[in-house]
């Protein structure tokens, strides 16, 4: 156990050390952030000050900001509104110098705005805008009869519909919640008249719709910037200078919407879109299934092995001491109540991002079925058989390895099988903290709202779960004594 911890620490330190020399570019897991991060990575590569590592698709603000603050990544694209509200927790901060001043104590800094802003906006069909002469949100006050569909997040947030309605005194009463991905179709089909949009949505460049002007300035400014570690800007001055020079004010909202559309609607890769934007030659780079499979197998194999090596003795300990056992089962049970994604996020301050924290989290997650089944298997052995072992003075290893573990083997193996199949699924979440594997495709697919990419990751994961199930059925023949098999 101690040796294992030591090995994990060494592994973690090693990844830290190698990563320290490279420029690590992070991103959240949605299209626009992927694209800008790819553009940043490509500029850094052109400068050539240091090798560049891409740590794209690191979940939401919570994960990626923690990764930045703990020094796991150097830079990623962020929005001023998010910096003030979610990171500095002070919505009153809007001016750039004030934001920079508050970031400084965190060891962070930010670039000047890149040009586009990703803010909420309201949109209507062009035909209706013409007919009703709608140009700004204020114009909606004249038409309380219109129907609206809003993203659930927009419906709830105070900087969304409730605040907007009050601010403008809007009379619309016929509104409902709808997934963002569906609202464009509902609008185009004439099912609703008004929807909420993001100002850089790719669909805006294609659909025949008009964004209404926020004439009374309700929506907060979500201007895109690069959020970076101060140390990085000082240690890689040429890279930082190049990024500022080539990106500041260079990507306006229309351009960003067009780049988003190229990925989401035309099916081009982030790399291709970024390359085109920078005037680079286009590259054909896509996720290969074999390396992802190997990565995924590694995640599952290592974490399962660790969970078995730790979990079986823990289950044994729980079976031996009733009180300690209950505490222990409660402990691993509680661990399971932590959502897998949250558990992964908790690992970042301890182990950074990448494979190591993913392996630790997956191992912890696989513990419950193994500990529980080992405990159940050992405590449900026929009391007469155990009594006979005592009478024969069978003790220590002989009793454990000849009597107890074989008799409990069916139940223990069932726990290990459950853990294995669960881990194949949970391991897809590792991609959110840069752990790789099939999840990489799922995270990208989710960001693009592209079912084919999601399935490209989800189907191999399901097949792997099946394969592992059958592998362990076969393993039963080696582990479980013949008369105990069903």
């Amino acid at each position, binding site marked *: 156990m101690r040796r294992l911890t030591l090995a994990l620490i060494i592994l973690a330190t090693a990844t830290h050390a190698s990563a320290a020399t490279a420029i690590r570019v992070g991103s959240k897991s949605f299209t626009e952030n992927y694209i800008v991060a790819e553009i940043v990575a490509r500029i850094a590569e052109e400068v050539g000050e240091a090798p560049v590592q891409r740590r794209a698709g690191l979940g939401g603000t919570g994960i990626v900001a923690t990764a930045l603050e703990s020094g796991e990544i150097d830079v990623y694209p962020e929005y001023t509104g998010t910096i003030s509200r979610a990171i500095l927790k002070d919505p009153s901060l809007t001016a750039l110098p004030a934001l920079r001043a508050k970031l400084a104590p965190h060891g962070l800094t930010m670039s000047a705005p890149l040009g586009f802003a990703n803010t909420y906006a309201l949109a209507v069909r062009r035909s209706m805008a013409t007919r009703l002469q709608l140009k700004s949100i204020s114009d909606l006050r004249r038409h309380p009869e219109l129907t609206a569909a809003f993203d659930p997040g927009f419906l709830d947030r105070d900087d969304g519909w409730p605040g907007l309605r009050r601010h403008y005194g809007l009379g619309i009463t016929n509104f409902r919640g709808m997934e963002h991905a569906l609202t464009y179709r509902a609008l185009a089909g004439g099912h609703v008249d008004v929807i909420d949009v993001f100002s850089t949505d790719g669909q805006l460049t294609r659909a025949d719709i008009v964004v209404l002007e926020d004439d009374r300035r309700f929506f907060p400014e979500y201007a895109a910037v690069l959020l970076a570690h101060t140390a990085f800007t000082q240690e890689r001055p040429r890279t930082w200078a190049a990024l500022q020079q080539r990106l500041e004010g260079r990507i306006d909202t229309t351009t960003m919407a067009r780049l988003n559309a190229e990925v989401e609607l035309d099916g081009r890769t982030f790399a291709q879109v970024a390359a085109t934007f920078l005037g680079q030659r286009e590259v054909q780079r896509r996720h290969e299934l074999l390396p992802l499979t190997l990565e995924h197998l590694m995640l599952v194999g290592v974490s399962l092995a660790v969970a078995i090596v730790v979990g079986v003795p823990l289950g044994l300990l729980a079976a031996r001491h009733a009180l300690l056992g209950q505490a222990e089962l409660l402990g691993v049970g509680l661990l399971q109540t932590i959502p897998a994604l949250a558990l992964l996020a908790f690992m970042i301050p301890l182990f950074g991002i990448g494979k190591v924290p993913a392996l630790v989290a997956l191992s912890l997650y696989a513990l419950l079925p193994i500990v529980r089944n080992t405990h159940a298997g050992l405590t449900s052995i*026929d009391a*007469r*058989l155990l*009594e*006979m072992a*005592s*009478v*024969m*003075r*069978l*003790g220590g290893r*002989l009793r454990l390895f*000849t*009597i107890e573990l*074989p*008799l409990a083997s069916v139940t223990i193996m069932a726990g290990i099988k459950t853990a294995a199949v669960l881990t194949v699924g949970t391991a897809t979440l590792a991609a959110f903290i840069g752990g790789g594997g099939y999840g990489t495709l799922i995270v990208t697919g989710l960001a693009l709202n592209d079912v084919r990419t999601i399935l490209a990751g989800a189907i191999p994961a399901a097949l792997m779960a099946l394969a592992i199930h059958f592998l362990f059925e076969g393993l039963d023949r080696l582990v479980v*004594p*013949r*008369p*105990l098999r069903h």
Partner: protein
Amino acid sequence: MIALRDVTKQFGARARVDHVSLTVERGTTRVLLGETGSGKSTILRLILGLLTPDSGAITVDDVPVTATSRRDVLQRIGYVVQEGALYPHLTAARNATLPARAEGWEAVRTGARLVELALLVGLDQELLDRYPAELSGGQRQRVGLIRALMLDPPVLLFDEPLGALDPISRSELQGELGRLFRELHKTVVLVTHDVREAFLFGTTITLLRDGRIVQEGTFADLAQRPAEPFVAEFLRAQAPPAAMTAYL
């Protein structure tokens, strides 16, 4: 020699063994006879040190049974229970030789002893490679007997050893056990609820009821001079009807 002096063991409010004193001389066979719940199995488990008496003292060959001496006491005892309590995942041979493995015997010595005992209890040697589920009830009980005899202990305890057997193999094993007890000169305590079995094995029978000794003596003593009406009632309840014996 096995001696219990004024032993009491309670489970909850109820005394399972109630001030029992009992002496089994070396080389003799004692049958503990009684209904389910009369405390006869509990007495065996007290002798084995699996339970600790609330009061009173127990000795096996003059060694007091305590937490510290338990291992020494167990070395002197072979224990056979109903169905044999064999480990389902081990072959008959592996089951039978477990006590020898616990002692660290060499394979050759263990093997020789196994063959010797299989012969003694009348178990076909080729059955030794089978798993318990592949054996008949009588064969399983013979394996349990080999296991109990493995280290040649001076004391043997039997807890309803023939309880789960069909009538023919039961009768067969009853005959063989009687022969073994006479040949091996072991100190034997056998627990049963079967009057016929008590008659066959017991030079001395101890009849128990609700954790107390009702009467102790030979079968003739119990049958002809019952200490209380219960004794006669218990014996009569299992006697075959006179009209039936006339046919046999």
